[in-house]
């Protein structure tokens, strides 16, 4: 039994959970909903187990380190964070239709990690610049932020679907529009706080490694762009009239920036090491 096997299995558990959430939404039956919740809890346990086991394996390989230092490991952590935040929301709002939007994201995330052929599944030791306590704080805060933004994105989509579709039987099951709007806003705030912490810890780390807290390298710049987009959203919301649909659009746009910060930057020239 090794971590990548557990995580591959977890991928399918998430897939199943997503399927069950969708089924419970479409057929409006409570049983698949309950099953979905338990499947999700099973999945997140597997995800956590895989994360911890990979940590243990790195010690066995002779250079113990927290598994947060390449694309594969970050995706594993990302999927876990998305699902954990989702579980909190489900417990608070008792509405399982949200799961139909969120679990497929957790699934895609892990599926990309487990199935993509050029993913760095082998456990490699850290290069000198990454050997810092700031690494784990930086990566964790960034990914909690990204996860909150992923949920805000899902809620944004949900808002648009519900608003467009009127009050059909399916859409009726979704939360009320202003509840979705409020949830989007809450996720954006959570994400903004953690993205801020992520940028700050990254800056402090860069300063301890290279003596500069800001260097306009593409990854840094893109995280700042993302930050600006969400700051725009937060302020736009304070102006009258910017609620509901426009906020939903902005949260979708913002998530586009997140995705680019995460994956797209590797296509640009720069220093950050993920994916290269």
């Amino acid at each position, binding site marked *: 039994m090794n971590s990548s096997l557990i995580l591959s299995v977890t991928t399918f558990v998430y897939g199943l959970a997503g399927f069950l959430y969708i089924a419970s939404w479409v057929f409006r039956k409570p049983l698949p909903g309950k099953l979905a919740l338990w499947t999700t809890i099973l999945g997140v346990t597997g995800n956590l187990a895989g994360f911890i086991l990979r940590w243990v394996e790195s010690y066995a390989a002779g250079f113990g380190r927290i598994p947060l230092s390449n694309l594969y490991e970050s995706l594993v952590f990302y999927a876990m964070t998305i699902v954990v935040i989702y579980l909190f929301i489900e417990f608070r709002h008792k509405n399982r239709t949200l799961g139909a939007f969120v679990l497929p994201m957790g699934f895609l995330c892990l599926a990309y990690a487990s199935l993509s052929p050029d993913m760095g599944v082998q456990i490699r030791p850290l290069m*000198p*610049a990454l050997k810092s306590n700031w690494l784990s704080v930086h990566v964790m805060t960034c990914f909690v932020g990204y996860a909150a933004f992923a949920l805000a994105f899902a809620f944004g989509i949900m808002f648009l679907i519900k608003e467009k579709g009127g009050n059909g039987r399916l859409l009726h099951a979704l939360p009320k529009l202003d509840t979705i709007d409020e949830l989007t806003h809450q996720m954006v705030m959570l994400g903004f706080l953690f993205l801020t912490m992520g940028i700050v810890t990254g800056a*402090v780390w860069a300063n301890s490694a290279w003596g500069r807290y*800001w260097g306009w390298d593409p990854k840094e*710049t893109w995280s700042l762009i993302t930050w600006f987009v969400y700051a725009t959203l937060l302020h736009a919301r304070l102006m009258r009239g910017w609620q509901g649909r426009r906020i939903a659009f902005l949260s979708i746009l913002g998530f586009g920036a997140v995705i680019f910060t995460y994956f797209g930057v590797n296509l640009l020239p720069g220093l950050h090491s993920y994916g290269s």
Partner: protein
Amino acid sequence: MISISRPSGLPGQVWDFFVSVRLTVATLALLAFTSIFGTLIPQNQHPADYINAYGEFFFRFFNVFDLFNMYNSWWYRLLMVTLTLNILICSLNRLSPTLKMVFRRKPAFNRLSIREEADCERSARELRTIVENRLSQTFAKIHVQEDEKGFSAFAEKGAWTRLGFYAIHLSIIILLFGALLGSIYGIDGHVNVPEGTSAGTIRLRNSGAPVPLDFQIQCNAFNISYYKTGAVREFRSSLTILEDGKAVSEKEIIVNDPLKYKGFTIYQSSYGKLKAKTQKLNFTNRATGEKVEKEISVGRTVAFPDGARELTLKKVADDHTLMGQDVGEAYVCELKEDGKTPMEVILPTRFPSFDKMRKGEWIISVARQENRFYTGLAVKKDPGVWLVYAGFLMLIAGCFISFFMSHQKMVIGVKETPTGTHVSVSGTSTRNRIGMKKRVREMAAIFNPKEYS
């Protein structure tokens, strides 16, 4: 109380411009959008590279807009200054109402925006204790005012969280100010120090200008260690700081652990190998085993021990490839023998018996030699960094306060009626109106459980 407010006339119009959140939205959106260009166009490269990549026309076009160094361009700075003025004026504008709200002593019993009304059978006297008990469960400050028909109760908490706004916005100004300070008074230099020597002058990264230090940095040793996989584990320089020849500080630095001295921070940043001036070759006689060592340098020729042939060192290649294999450092030589065409002889440093394959009378190999390194140190001084860090802390604290805490108020008014009492429950919150609505309904349910079940 100090109050700074909108001036009249033209300054007033300027004030209006900078006070609006609409300007904030526009500026932030513009910053987000324009920042993208600098990530698509590599910054601060050589003009020739740009002309190569984009052609003459686009080179000129981009250059007009400073797109090759855009984060320092006038227009990007203008956006930053606009944002800063926006924050400053916006903050000043809100200062006095906010302070009144935070430090107000007298409560206001006016009804608030989220409201519920309930009719109750109990008397005002009875209700007073119930109201006080309920309110004190969630609120710290409670005021009650009696009037002839009943009473009003006012409760609030978290008024200070309104200062979160200032923490966020001021932190950005502090942070930008720290960055400005660093860019004016900071020093960003570099120096290479060979092992066993010391250096007292650094070169600035941007201009290359030399800057003398009032101390010397001595590199005692530089080491690279490797993981089993062959990847680099650590670069480590053992440094001593000398003043007037005396050691005043000592530290082994690695990439994430620099040395600090007199406001300067010294970082491990690069390294390199020092090439020895002369190299030594071993000539071993295949038949007798006799071994002779000879000195050689690039471009020089040495005679074989028997005098019948001679060898010229053409170059020392760092990464030589032999039959598709990278063999690392190798000496490339030419062998001359009377009556024969000259032949090339490759001597990989790491494989001393490689030359046996040539089947010559003498086997030549590169004599073992100590490699000496120099360590590349970034030497920096940034007097603004503490302001930047203070700004960071304040920004995070401010976001936390603004996002997860709120100023909540509740006013409950009780009036006697012929059948009992009429109760109005009202509340506001700077955040989570849905939560406040729920709380107001729950409160109203205490007085009229039937209607609010």
